């Protein structure tokens, strides 16, 4: 019963991540894509920990989740600082590209 619960919650979070992937692929501007990637990374932390609970090796998987959270944070921060300097292109109709 617990393994079914953790499998179900992992699949639900993965469905939410694939919904966010729509915003990454389709997003009108580059910052929409950045925030989509950030959301997927935050969801992946939960999936990693739930998977560790599923395999009953949660002590091992927490460290992976911590490192993943660090990489996600640094990557998002670097991308946003880069595009803050470089500028986000805005076209004539006012929509960000």
């Amino acid at each position, binding site marked *: 019963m617990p393994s079914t*619960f953790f499998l179900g*919650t992992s699949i*639900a*979070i993965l*469905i*939410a*991540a694939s*919904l*966010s992937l*729509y*915003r990454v692929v389709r997003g009108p*501007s580059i*910052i*929409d894509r*950045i*925030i*989509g990637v*950030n*959301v997927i990374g*935050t*969801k992946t*932390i*939960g999936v990693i*920990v*739930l998977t560790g*609970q599923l395999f009953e090796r*949660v*002590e091992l998987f*927490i*460290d992976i*989740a*911590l490192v993943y*959270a*660090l990489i*996600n*944070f640094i990557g*998002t*921060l670097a991308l*946003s*600082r880069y*595009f*803050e300097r470089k*500028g*986000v292109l*805005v076209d004539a109709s*006012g*929509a*960000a590209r």
Partner: protein
Amino acid sequence: MIAVGMVLVCFGVFFLLTGAVGLIRFPDFYTRMHAAGKCDTLGSLLVLTGLACYEGPGLASVKLLVVALFVFVTSATATHAIARAAKRNRVPWWTREEGR
């Protein structure tokens, strides 16, 4: 304690799904950020805290709470950095169209 943990994980998954729907449906960058930033932080926090409750006292639950604290700080910081990048570059915000 196990039941409390499962309920918390269920609430967290609900918030993550709601945040994803908001990320798709909202019309504007800033409103999308509103959905993504808060729902995602709260959902991850609830999932990690629920798993810590499920584990019971021990090293694993302490580590899970540390990860939850880390997510609680860094998710807000990352959201703020992206929003500042958008604001500095004058990304236009959504207004209701005329004649509606």
